[in-house]
């Protein structure tokens, strides 16, 4: 892998101004009107509750807005504890004296869904308290605003809904990114990624990055195999949980976290571990754990005895996780399993190749596999360099026109 730093494109192409945020025009206008109303004094509703599905630009909109208006964001998200005590400490002072010192502030509670009962006891009540007493704008962000726990909060807020983006909007955005990255992309390919994202532009951008980074061309064939694949984000989370698990149980449980096909998950782990595990001894141990899981997988398939499943899971999750010291070296993107790409994109190719082998083998008294290895490479060179002679030989071997053009077309 090259040493160039991997920056997620969601970060690299994050909108800096509200005008760069795609879609949801109505919601953006509502937010802008509300924030402007603060110029005339504290309005009746001092808080905004932005809600909508993941990846449609809720947080990004707030950040772009603050940037446009040169306001300071005081942000809290699910990664921090939000107990009553914590909320007071975080927002108490800022909500009282915000505008007196330096830039004016906006207090943002992101991922409010993540304020959970037990761990963040009293957190929601504390947020209500902040809103009631605030002298600066407060914004709440959540996926689902209609959770009964938010009843009190909803009464205090202007509700702003963010909707899923349309396929056209997402695709147009992907086109812009490709242009900036110098990638010539098929419209059909981008539309396909956009459709798959079901309005989640963040996942669409991450998909695009995983598929197109480092290439100068992106064709429909490059992406079509994604069809009917599990939602990537789910797999990414599961992968991360397994590779970086702190306990064997966590690693094993990750399998149940999402509805991910086990064979598929195996392929993802197999593809990605060499990019994460750099120490040769650790890599060999991790690959060995996977190889052993693979043996049990073979036994399960052969015998149909599902009791072997437990060893497969043990080895491919905990076995891999505890082969290495988990020293993450920066942000490493997950890659699509090459083997699946190969298998699905070249099944027909494989069959064609086998048939070519059989026909050559028949004439030359050898098996199809040996014909492919021992005769085909020479035939290819002849066809490419001396088509006249090559075609004569190919005809004698009973190869069809399709086969001939396949052989001539594939590079040695």
């Amino acid at each position, binding site marked *: 892998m090259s040493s160039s730093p991997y920056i997620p494109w969601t970060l690299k192409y994050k909108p800096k101004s509200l005008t760069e945020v795609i879609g949801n025009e109505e919601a953006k206008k509502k937010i802008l009107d509300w924030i402007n109303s603060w110029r005339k004094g504290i309005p009746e509703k001092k808080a905004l509750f932005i809600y909508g599905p993941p990846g449609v630009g809720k947080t990004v909109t707030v950040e772009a807005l603050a940037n446009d208006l040169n306001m300071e964001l005081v942000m809290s998200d699910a990664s921090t504890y939000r107990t009553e005590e914590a909320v007071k400490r975080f927002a108490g002072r800022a909500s009282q004296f915000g505008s007196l010192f330096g830039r004016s502030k906006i207090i943002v509670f992101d991922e409010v869904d993540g304020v959970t009962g037990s761990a963040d006891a009293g957190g929601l009540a504390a947020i209500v308290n902040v809103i009631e007493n605030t002298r600066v704008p407060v914004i709440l962000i959540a996926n689902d605003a209609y959770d009964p726990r938010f009843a009190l909060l909803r009464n205090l807020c202007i509700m702003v809904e963010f909707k899923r983006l349309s396929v056209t909007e997402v695709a147009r955005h992907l086109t812009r990114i490709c242009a900036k990255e110098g990638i010539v992309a098929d419209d059909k390919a981008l539309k396909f990624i956009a459709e798959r994202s079901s309005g989640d532009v963040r996942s669409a951008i991450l998909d695009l990055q995983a598929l197109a980074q480092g290439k100068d061309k992106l064709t429909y064939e490059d992406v079509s195999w994604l069809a009917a694949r599990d939602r990537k984000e789910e797999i990414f989370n599961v992968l991360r949980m397994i590779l970086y698990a702190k306990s064997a149980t966590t690693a094993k449980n990750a399998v149940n976290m999402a509805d991910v096909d086990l064979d598929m998950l195996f392929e993802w782990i197999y593809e990605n571990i*060499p990019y994460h595990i750099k120490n040769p001894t650790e890599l060999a141990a991790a690959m060995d754990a996977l190889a052993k899981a693979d043996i049990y997988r073979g036994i399960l398939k052969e015998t149909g005895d599902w009791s072997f499943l437990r060893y497969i899971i043990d080895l491919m999750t905990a076995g891999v996780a505890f082969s290495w010291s988990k020293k993450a070296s920066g942000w490493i993107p997950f890659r699509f399993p090459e083997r699946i790409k190969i298998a699905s994109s070249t099944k027909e190719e494989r069959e064609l190749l086998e048939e070519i082998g059989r026909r050559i083998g028949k004439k030359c008294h*050898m*098996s199809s*596999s040996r014909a492919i290895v021992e005769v085909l490479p020479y035939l290819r060179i002849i066809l490419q360099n001396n088509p006249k002679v090559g075609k004569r030989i190919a005809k*004698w071997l009973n190869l069809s026109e399709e086969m001939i053009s396949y052989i001539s077309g594939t590079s040695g």
Partner: protein
Amino acid sequence: MWTEKYRPRTLDEIVDQEEIVARLKSFVKAKNVPHCIFAGPPGTGKTTAALCLAHDLYGENYREYIMELNASDERGINVIRETVKTFARTKPIGEVTFKLLILDEADNMTDDAQQALRRTMERYSETARFILIANYSGKIIEPIQSRCAPFRFTYLPAEAVAKRIRYICERENVEITDDGVEAILDLSGGDLRKTLNILQTAASVGKTVTADLVYAVVGKANPADVREMMLTALNGDFISARSKLRELTRKYGLAGTDIIRQIHNEVFRLNIPDIWKVKLADIIGEVDYRLVRGATEEVQLSALLAKLVEAGYEMKRSAK
């Protein structure tokens, strides 16, 4: 293809392998052939000898009396049970009272299939004789070996191959330099099929077959090789080594067992401490065993590559 065009039709046309030819001719004379095993490296004339024997025995229409099966393509036990039985059961019309069944690449047959074959050979020996062709006779089960007359084919001597090359060049109006001949001999190592494939390809690409042209052609035919993949791994680059592995299996259709065999051959040629050769042989054996048990080729071979990366790393450390 020149390999077919210049394949001898009769036992008389076979150059070299004199002893074998003499014995086969005596079979023709007696109009009787025992079950045979033709063993030896690739491109030494095993299949040719079997076909020539059939020709001399049955005459121009020999195809009606023989069946050619390739065990690699049809190695299942059912093929032996059905196809072979149906063929072997009936008596041919004519002077010769048996048919000839040529089973190529017989060392790729499963043990079960070989057991089934053994019965069939016994039961129908009145009406059918078998010629088993293999690179290694050791892979044929003992009970079959003991029922067959063994023939050991060896690589043709360089002079014989060189003579063949010049003969064909003359017939095909191809100019070839002396170093061109040398280069082909060097690369084909006595394998006549490989010799002719290289020669024909070089002749169709360039006007004169020179050493440079020969090396260029062969280099293009085998861009990805097992040795290179292993060296890449030993140098610590697992990801590139895995890509090479994928290229070998995907583009060149190499089977896992073929790759394992080549890896094993290469290990003992590598410039590494002997103790590591033994350690690696042990690991390779384990992987081979797993493949036989039905594990996934690429995953197991990748695990082997990871071991090579580790070995390279350990060697560098202990060298310091």
